[in-house]
């Protein structure tokens, strides 16, 4: 019975070949068969087939490069693009497991997610750049591992701080002052209902800081991060 009705019966290279041909048809605006590329994704993600990953990478590299190049103001040179592309693939690989993949009904939904991962990498880069500009005035480098570790430590700190915040008003104040870098007067202007006066706002701020300083774990973390005297 040589006629194939289920692409799972085809060898991997046949799937890769089909994905390549059908993608060409897609970009030529011809009717195309999305099943090959979907099956290639399935083998890479659900079956964790390393060769399928390599073929997938080769197949979608140009597409992801195109998505990254949209961000002209954030990307400089081909080297930068390559790092962003790798980061997008890595993000996709980490975020999509077999269970999540089974929730994607078709190729379109998989590609939407992949494109979202590329966008997400660029958002991370923009956040890091803005952060550097806001705090250190140094240009950000696309070091994703360092960024991730740094991010995890800071997330832990915020979670710890959140434990000391008694209600949404306090949370909004801390987020506005430190998360967004606003001044107390700007907070009052932005959220007049929650913060009708500067004096009251300062009082809430001071109470929170007092509570935080009594948290030994936070205080210790702060002390550890101070330059030696």
């Amino acid at each position, binding site marked *: 019975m040589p006629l194939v009705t289920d692409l799972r019966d085809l060898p991997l290279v046949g799937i890769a070949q089909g994905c390549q041909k059908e993608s060409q048809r897609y970009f030529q605006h011809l009717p195309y068969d999305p099943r090959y590329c979907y099956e290639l994704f399935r083998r890479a993600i659900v079956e964790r087939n390393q060769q399928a990953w390599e073929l997938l990478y080769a197949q979608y590299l140009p597409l992801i490069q195109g998505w990254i190049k949209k961000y002209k103001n954030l990307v400089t040179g081909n080297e930068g693009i390559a790092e962003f592309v790798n980061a997008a693939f890595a993000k996709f690989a980490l975020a999509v497991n077999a269970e999540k993949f089974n929730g994607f009904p078709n190729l379109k939904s998989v590609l*939407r997610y992949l494109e979202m991962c590329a966008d997400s990498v660029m958002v991370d880069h923009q956040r890091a750049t803005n952060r550097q500009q806001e705090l250190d005035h140094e240009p950000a480098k696309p070091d994703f591992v360092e960024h991730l570790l740094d991010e995890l430590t800071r997330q832990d700190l915020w979670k710890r701080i959140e434990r000391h915040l008694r209600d949404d008003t306090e949370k909004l104040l801390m987020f506005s002052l430190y998360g967004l870098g606003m001044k107390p007067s700007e907070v009052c202007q932005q959220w007049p209902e929650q913060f009708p006066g500067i004096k009251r706002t300062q009082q809430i701020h*001071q109470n929170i800081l007092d509570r*935080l300083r009594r948290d030994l774990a936070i205080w210790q973390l702060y002390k550890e991060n101070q330059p030696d005297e």
Partner: protein
Amino acid sequence: MSCLMPPELDDGQLLAYLTGNAPVAVRQHLEQCPSCRARLETLQGWQAWLAKNLYRTPCPPSLELGEYRLEILSEEQNAKIEQHLAWCPHCRSELQLFGDDEQVVRSNPKVNSFQEIANRVRIVIARLQEDLTGWSLESPTPVLAGMRGQETARSLTYDADDFEISLLIQPDAAQPTQRMLLGWLSEHENDQATEVYLWHGVQQTATTRVDDLGNFAFSALPPGRYNLILHSDTHDIYINDLDL
């Protein structure tokens, strides 16, 4: 060290000074009192450390924001993101960066149903009908050719739906350690372009086209196991695990 101008300034006054809201008396006190100035510096360092570590830290990870945009989060996660978006102008602006639905399916309305596609392309795995090993072009008798010690050729015939594919594998005359693969596709129609792809492992190593008479050829192929794919608009024919 104690305050030179008691009572010492409290944290609220120091905080007011740091945010530019302190009255003149507090400013004057700080100018003259090293003790309160030292406490001010500690508070300033503490605030700067918080600012450095908390800037945008409470914001959801970008991936979560993207998943919110794709509407694949749970209701609970959605509610959390929406509350954050109400507070955060940065995240509201970042949300716009995530591509809209139509970018992936860029103006391609011709996505057919699976049934239409299945009717368009038949996928066939060719079945080996005949394997003649050991005959040479010089001697049509396989056994004798082998006895002369010549590098022999191998002839394979495959059946694939309405097609028959004949393959001849032989040493490449120009590079004796390499192989040459000659093929013939039956029922080949001139107006039907058929491309032939040769894969070695996961590398596509060579491609060619079937000519008007149904022939195709590859040369200088390293020995090994290959997959051969014949692709046309109506058929995909796979010959798997071809040993050259």
